[in-house]
């Protein structure tokens, strides 16, 4: 039947093998895109007429910030799928997403603060986007904290899934309330000046980095997912065969 491929996606041994086969493809594609994007962004692209060479941090900052949200959505959706249809693999995917997403969020915060030092003269400005990013990091930490506080894997899966779904409902509310909060307290920051449309020589490397980071996330997710499956299925007999092969 046409649906058998779909059912196989719920089977840990199948996913374990599939992840092993797919990882190199995604990893190499990510390496090519990121190296190409970095070369294009750091060497080929012209300096910005206002920010000089400082703007080049965008090639790491923007993709990290994009990934921080995208990974959270992936995590919440797979957690929701796991909660509703009780698919173990979906919970494993959600659990594997969290540390990756937290790392991207952290990278976005660090690069944003370094950029802020050059643009605003301070490492930290209560810019709405940075503030939302910080709250997002707290959401990730809460998710991972809840998981690690529970010994029983199934309960940790389902409880953290509820939290992830509640979190994704809240992310837009938090984002807009922070925007609104800041617009009342602070004059428009320098960031808006940097908004004019980018020339292709700047934009193409940025798009390559965005795509490269997304593919990198998939590669990292597949590696983490295999580790997660090994941990969860350690009592299963197929693990012995898979590992001793």
């Amino acid at each position, binding site marked *: 039947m046409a649906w058998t491929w779909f059912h196989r996606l719920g089977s840990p041994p199948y996913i374990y093998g599939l992840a092993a086969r797919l990882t190199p493809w995604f990893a190499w594609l990510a390496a090519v895109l990121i190296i190409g994007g970095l070369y294009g962004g750091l060497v080929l692209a012209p300096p910005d007429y206002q920010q000089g060479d400082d703007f080049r941090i965008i090639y790491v900052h923007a993709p990290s910030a994009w990934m921080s949200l995208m990974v959270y959505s992936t995590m919440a959706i797979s957690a929701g799928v796991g909660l509703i249809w009780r698919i173990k693999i979906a919970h494993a995917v959600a659990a594997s997403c969290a540390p990756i997403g937290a790392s991207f969020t952290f990278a976005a915060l660090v690069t944003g603060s370094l950029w802020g030092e050059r643009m605003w003269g301070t490492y930290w400005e209560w810019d709405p986007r940075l503030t939302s990013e910080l709250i997002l990091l707290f959401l990730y930490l809460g998710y991972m*904290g809840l998981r690690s506080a529970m010994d029983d894997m199934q*309960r940790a899966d389902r409880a953290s899934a509820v939290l992830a779904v509640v979190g994704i409902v*809240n992310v837009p*509310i938090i984002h807009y*309330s922070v925007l609104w909060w800041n617009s009342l307290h602070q004059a428009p920051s320098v960031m808006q000046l940097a908004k004019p449309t980018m020339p292709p020589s700047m934009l193409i490397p940025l798009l390559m980095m965005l795509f490269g980071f997304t593919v990198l996330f998939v590669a990292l997710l597949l590696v983490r997912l295999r580790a997660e499956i090994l941990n969860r299925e350690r009592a299963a007999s197929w693990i012995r065969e898979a590992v001793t092969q």
Partner: protein
Amino acid sequence: MNTSVIETSSTGTSALEAARLVLARDIRLALRKRGQLVQPLAFFAIVTTLFPLGISPELSRLRDVAPGVLWVAALLSSLLALEFLFRDDAQDGTLEQHVLSGQSLTWLLFAKTVAHWLLTGLPLAVMAPLAGLSLGVPAAALSGIVVSVAIGSVALSLIGSIGAALTLGVKRSGALLSLLTLPLSMPVLIFGARATELAIKGAGFAPPLYLLGALAVLGITLAPLAAAAAVRISLE
């Protein structure tokens, strides 16, 4: 799980009637342990006392930070009060009986959260003007503070009920509970402090109050569903 009002269990008690009974029971039990009720309020008073000691005794300076101080203190004190929401009932098995009762758990938890708000949020709203006065807030702004804390604490109780339900089975859950609840509560802090600030300046504070109300309504609609799912998972 059907959550409509007309649903009846095998005993013939409607969901709304069961919720009313739970509400009455929780309030009666809490009033017998008054000492526990006073604790979050005392905590609120102490936290608001810390700020003048830490910043400056000048009322003019304190007035500027009063909205933030009041709301951070309210947030922390509601966090402290969350411990009483489900813990005793989970320990003596009452919560398990609620799950097994055949009644809509969503309604029962909503009733428990309403009781919790009546016992902790509402007293906080009554206390807030006193703390406000001590921070140099003009008397004309006090009604605004009462209303905003009253509405905001509804949202805080509901958001907190999800966190409290998720951490039911976790030992020494205090730090984890704050890690789960505080990021989700930040919009309440933003709008609440903004409404208070506008009230202190003597400006119209209705817009942030409406947004606070919207958060409370959203919480009433969705939070009991999430809390019910979380309680089921925690008691499995």
